[in-house]
């Protein structure tokens, strides 16, 4: 190999560099791999779609290592409380202790950049540029067995310069002629020549912490297949000898100071999880990657992010789509777990369209850019019931398709009853096929037959079952009434209108006065004080947004708060002098806050 072995680049500070942290083989099907880089522990796992996730090794809830968690192919599940985090975004998708709640979007693990190249997985704190360019061999190398060494990376890199090997280990004779082509404390290239045979080894050194590193070697060119194991053993022997020598040397050296992982900014705060209906924001830009007719009168859209990766979502979530004509429409995401690269929605052309569905059907084309909101969820799926009955009418199937896939993935029992005019009216038939026999199609039924069918479905009530229904208003009304007559408890029957308009929130509406900001604001039903403040540029730090952590505690100067948090104790609540503005509201018509 010539001196282009590794592209010359100025040495970057370790925090801005790429390091190999695993071999590709370290991430087999549904395994969770544990490693450390620069003193920071990492949980690394490959989703079933091949994507490699590199995350800080701590569940956000109670700090339990995620490297002991379960990789289910789409999500990583913490062993302690079963919290689930989605591949790519690392956003929390489910908190089992509160099955009826959608987790706040701020609950998102720290992720690190990742590149998979030369059979190695690369990551770093905040790496700049590209991974080391290994010239001449593309992806055709052979990854050697990674060798952990209890010695500092710089010392090991130095010793690697005297690494010697035979280009063809099955041949008898000496080590061949070895030369060091290039090297620094991150990487060393050694070339061995023996007659006409020439072989190169590129060593990359992963600094695990101050005292330990892993040497990851790459052999170029790749030997012929039947020689591979012999070559791997040859290098492993040589590396083991080098390891023993360097560990012996390191043992008598003064121990280096420990590496402190860089402190990263705390989780983002003060981001509203719910955008009020009258001042919608559309922070995401997506491109229409695919548009197709998924059924008669229903267009499917796949939306791909431009820039930042798409935020996590849960079954039942929807997005606001901002159309070029100024209209804003809500559409449910149909994606299943692990299907996180593109948001997928289904849009029915409404005969009486005021321009929303019409614009999407007629004007929007593949390649167009749309502004959308982050996903919100007013229709969260409980996964704490033994059986779930999903009832869809027409386009109301969209959130239920997402739910069916999530339940199937979690191996929970469900049935999806899909009422539609005809087979041609069934949206996303390819997903329905994958769900198999658990989808029951009810086609071409009139109102009376539909009612009878619903009656039969709801008659199968068992103690630990629940119903989710989404469809036309008449169907919802009928289902609701029948369920009540058949003895279904209210909390086991969940509704959403298929247009995904926000479910009517009948809670209080009141005024807040901000004493220090001299603002007088109205808090409408369905919107939190925190959100109203944020809308008007008044940022109160918040974290959990569930009334649990106390971050958004503010003083109350006048008025009676309607405390809904768990942070303040009863006596504190009775004093009415402080409140958590993320969840608590007002009993009095007006509150004066010291903000």
């Amino acid at each position, binding site marked *: 190999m010539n001196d282009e072995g590794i592209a010359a680049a100025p040495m970057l500070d370790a925090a801005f560099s790429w390091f190999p942290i695993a071999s590709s083989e370290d991430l087999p099907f549904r395994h969770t791999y544990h490693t450390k880089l620069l003193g920071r522990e990492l949980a690394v796992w490959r989703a079933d779609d091949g994507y490699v996730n590199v995350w800080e090794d701590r569940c956000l809830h109670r700090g339990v290592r995620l490297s002991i968690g379960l990789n289910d192919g789409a999500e990583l599940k913490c062993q302690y*409380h079963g919290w689930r985090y989605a591949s790519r975004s690392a956003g929390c998708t489910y908190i089992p*202790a509160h099955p*009826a709640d959608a987790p706040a979007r701020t609950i998102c693990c720290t992720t690190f950049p990742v590149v998979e190249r030369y059979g190695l997985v690369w990551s770093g704190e905040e790496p700049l540029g590209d991974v080391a360019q290994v010239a001449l061999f593309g992806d055709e190398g052979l990854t050697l067995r990674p060798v952990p060494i209890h010695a500092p990376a710089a010392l090991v890199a130095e010793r690697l310069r005297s690494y010697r090997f035979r280009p063809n280990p099955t041949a008898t004779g000496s080590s061949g002629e070895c030369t060091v082509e290039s090297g620094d404390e991150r990487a060393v290239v050694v070339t061995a020549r023996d007659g006409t045979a020439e072989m190169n080894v590129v060593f990359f050194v992963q600094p695990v912490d101050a005292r330990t590193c892993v040497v990851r070697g790459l052999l170029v060119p790749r030997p012929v297949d039947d020689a591979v194991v012999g070559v791997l053993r040859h290098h492993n022997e040589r590396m083991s000898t080098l390891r023993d020598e360097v560990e012996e040397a390191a043992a008598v050296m003064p121990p280096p100071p420990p590496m402190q992982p860089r402190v990263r900014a705390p989780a983002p705060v003060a981001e509203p999880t719910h955008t009020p209906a009258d001042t919608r924001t559309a922070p995401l830009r997506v491109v229409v990657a695919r548009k197709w007719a998924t059924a008669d009168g229903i267009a499917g859209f796949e939306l791909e992010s431009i820039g930042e990766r798409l935020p996590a979502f849960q079954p039942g979530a929807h997005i606001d789509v901002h159309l070029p004509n100024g209209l804003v429409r809500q559409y449910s995401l149909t994606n299943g777990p692990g299907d996180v690269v593109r948001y997928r929605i289904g849009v029915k052309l409404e005969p009486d369209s005021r321009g929303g569905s019409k614009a999407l059907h007629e004007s929007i084309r593949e390649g167009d850019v749309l502004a959308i909101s982050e996903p919100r969820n007013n229709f969260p799926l409980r996964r704490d019931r033994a059986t779930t009955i999903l009832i869809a009418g027409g386009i109301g199937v969209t959130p239920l398709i997402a739910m069916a896939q999530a339940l199937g993935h979690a191996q929970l029992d469900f049935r999806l009853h899909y009422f539609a005019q005809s087979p041609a009216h069934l949206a996303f038939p390819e997903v329905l096929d994958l769900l198999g026999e658990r989808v029951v199609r009810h086609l071409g039924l009139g109102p009376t037959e539909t009612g009878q069918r619903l009656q039969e479905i709801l008659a199968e009530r068992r103690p630990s079952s629940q119903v989710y229904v989404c469809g036309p208003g008449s169907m919802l009304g009928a289902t609701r009434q029948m369920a009540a007559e058949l003895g279904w408890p209210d909390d086991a029957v969940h509704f959403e209108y298929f247009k995904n308009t926000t479910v009517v929130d009948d809670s209080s509406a009141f005024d807040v006065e901000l004493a220090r900001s001299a603002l007088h604001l109205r808090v409408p039903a369905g919107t939190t004080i925190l959100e109203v403040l944020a809308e008007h540029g008044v940022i109160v730090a918040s974290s959990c947004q569930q*009334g649990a952590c106390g971050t958004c505690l503010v003083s109350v100067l006048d008025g009676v708060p309607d405390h809904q948090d768990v942070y303040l104790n009863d006596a504190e609540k009775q004093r009415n002098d402080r409140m958590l503005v993320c969840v608590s509201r007002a009993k009095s018509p007006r509150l004066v806050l010291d903000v």
Partner: protein
Amino acid sequence: MWSNSSTRPIVDSFERCTDPVALNQWHPLSAVAELRRGVTYQTLLLGEPLGYGIDDAGEPVVWPAKALHLPAGSPLPATPPAGLPTQVSYGYLWTTLGDPQPLFAIPEADEPDRRVLNAATIGIATSAPRAVENFLDMGHFPFVHAGVLGAEPHTEVVDYRVDVVDGEVWATGCRFPQPKAAPGSSASAMTDYTYRVPHPYCTILYKSCPFDESRRDVIGLFLQPMGEEAVRANMLLCVVDPISTDTEIRRFQLGIFSQDKPILENQVPRRLPLSPIAETPIRADKSAIAYRRWLSEMGLTYGVIPAADGAA
């Protein structure tokens, strides 16, 4: 076999504690029933090496090893120098390095028909507050104690009440469906729990008794802080169970202990962070939220990471 009876000095050592809140507490050292009379044992308390034992008359003796180092297993000294205060309560030998208030009371322990026994003493590489918080937590039952204290998909933690009463944290009205509530029960049952934290490193649970609906079993978790990030966890049982053998009762509780241990040892950091935004509490954690605030308010620093501003 026991390091407590070893002839070697204790090799583990920790920085000594300077936190007056931790020093001015009673701390458990050992179940008295497990000590041979007249023999010296060694241990660490708050980083301080101690010698201790029960003398031939049955009286407890505890002293700092820096005043008199005796190999473990040697005859117990009659009056060691700088002897520390001691008491035997609930079957454990307790001592202190400071000037504590009286130990909390467990009136049930005096009821004649109760079985009072040490279910287990296990070393865990964590801080005492992390272990207490885990004990207060119901949300992990279906995941960590699957099939025993809980089972998926029944994972919801319904609301309960938390109060600070007479300087103790109490969580009442806690309920969780349990497939196998105790060694004596086989059917699943909605089990009632009351949790009490009377001491920064000790907590007590009252739960439905499968043998007598009118009474509640009492389970205590008493942590001996050997260091900030190393404890010996003692589990007291004070139960109404006319049927099970001690072995069966212990096996059940040891099984539960052994499931919690690897979770606790995989928590990062090991010391309990008291800042409310260091981790992500949810409503189900309100007893833990109250416990963290309570520790902050009492000014505890040993085994915790205090909130930056000194208050929760």
